[in-house]
């Protein structure tokens, strides 16, 4: 029984120590909220300009569930990407890559990137999706697989008028907002 007591104390102390170690303000600060990069386009996108889009910002300090869906979009401010990164001159049509704004909801951030040839959306990718829990990760995967890609719903519909993925309303919604802003910017 004495050993059990030590073991339980050790469990508590060990868990606390691990958490505290990882909480210490340290270096490996970046990159964590952007696990998926969706590198489908050959040319890399224009530099994203939103400076506040770092993961440390991603945590919503007080997750509120307001009726509006609680999307505080970083709107226009985040999306002033210097629109087009042109690829080779051989291409008759202008190709461009546009970043949507970071849209934050209670589960995390959503940011969409689209590639256009002329006016036509040829590819869509989610640069950020909520991944904090396994559950939200799964929902994000569902949204991503339905909407994104060269044959996803975005390319198919050529608009932000997308069906909501059931069980992932908030993420679908945030995706549409970011996408809509990107489309507005393109046209």
């Amino acid at each position, binding site marked *: 029984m004495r050993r059990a007591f030590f073991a339980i104390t050790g469990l508590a102390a060990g868990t606390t120590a691990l958490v505290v170690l990882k*909480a210490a303000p340290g270096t490996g*600060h970046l990159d964590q909220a952007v696990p998926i990069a969706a590198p489908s386009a050959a040319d890399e996108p224009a530099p994203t300009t939103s400076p506040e889009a770092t993961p440390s910002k991603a945590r919503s300090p007080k997750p509120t569930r307001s009726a509006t869906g609680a999307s505080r979009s970083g709107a226009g401010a985040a999306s002033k990407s210097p629109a087009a990164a042109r690829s080779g001159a051989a291409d008759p049509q202008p190709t461009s890559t546009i970043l949507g704004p970071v849209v934050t909801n209670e589960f995390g951030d959503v940011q969409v990137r689209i590639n256009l040839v002329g006016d036509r959306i040829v590819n869509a990718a989610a640069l950020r999706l909520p991944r904090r829990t396994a559950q939200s990760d799964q929902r994000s995967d569902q949204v991503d697989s339905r909407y994104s890609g060269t044959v996803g719903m975005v390319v198919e519909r050529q608009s932000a008028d997308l069906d909501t993925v059931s069980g992932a309303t908030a993420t679908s919604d945030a995706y549409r907002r970011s996408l809509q802003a990107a489309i507005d910017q393109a046209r």
Partner: protein
Amino acid sequence: MPRRGAFGRRLLVVLFLGGLVASVLPWWRDTPTGSLTGATAMTTAAGQITGLVAGYLLLVQVLMMSRLPVLERWAGGERIARWHRDVAATLLVAVLAHVALILVGYAGLEGRSPFGQAGVMLREYQDMVSAFVAAGLLVLVGLVSVRAVRRVLPYELWHAIHLAAYAVLLLGYAHQFSNGSQLFRPGPVRTGWIALYVLVVAAWLWGRVVVPLWFNLRHRLRVSDVVVEGPDVVSLYLTGERLDRLDLLGGQFFRWRFLTRGCWWQSHPFSVSAAANDRWLRLTVKVVGRHTQDLRNLDPGVRVWAIGPSGTCTAAHRTRERALLIAAGSGITPLRAMLEELPPGAALIYRARTPADVLLQEELDWLSRNRGLRVWYVFGSRDDPGPRQVTTPDGLRQLVPDVARRDVYLCGPPGLVEQYRQVLRQAGVRRRQIHLATFAL
């Protein structure tokens, strides 16, 4: 006789700790330093850690009950039972912490109350209903194993409830992979975790099915004789095939199943009470309850199913040349079996209520005449002057002046064994010189 040291046991401890670290490692790798900002993230992280630890400990618990020969050999059945109990308490705390921390953490993330969150998880998250049931069962198993509760329950009832632990393994399985942040993504971590399950199940089948089948088909044990030793004590003699090939040490025990009406469904541990020989095995049983009562009336010819041998309270595990054995009541049986395997010069303190309660006296007398065994019989209950005197460090030293330089083997009721352990420590006997057999698993 080759010695069996503590090497295997230490290796097991190292493996266990290594596995523990390895099971938390994926979390450590996935979590960038500095990413845990705020109480919610920290709570969730602690919930993940305790979850991984709990998952690992549950597998260790099942592995320890697998009767795998290598575990029985390196650690011994009694020690494994003690480890199992200690880990159980830790596992229970880890599971409760996991549930509470995850509920609070997720509730914070999604802006709900923890109870609301529990509802949402039950309804919307995959495999969470079975996971909650698993946690509930584990708490139940833990509750009935609290010593005070367990003592008032019939052993069979306690055992039946305890089997629910296997349901915990089953029901808790899926949610780890559908919701576990470290495990839901295909990859080496997930594969490794599944492999661990496969390994544990394989070990269980090996230790509980394959090895016993092999053993019992090979030796085909049967009851040959039931001999009355005293008012409440019988000896069972078993015969079988190839007994000369039995890898048995004096002091070890088997778990026995007597394949006759009313008995076959229960398995009880009894020590072998005579040194191994190629003709028979003997157990000496004190009647204390229903099953031991039934054993008294066994007919010759009844088939016996045995799992073992198990136990490290043997001459092969000694660290010194000479030994002191302390037996109380029917605790004499395993010690009797090891006497012939010890070097001459051993001493035995045998406590019994009255002279009539002394078991196997003729054999002990024979051993003291022929192998230089010194025997002290101490009669009375624990408050009588004789027994009181031999449960003090000074009293022990008077009888056995070099006690601190001997291995000491203790066998008897748990309370007495524990009392002696402390007295021996005070008398200067090092921990690894003390070998316990408590008749309680």
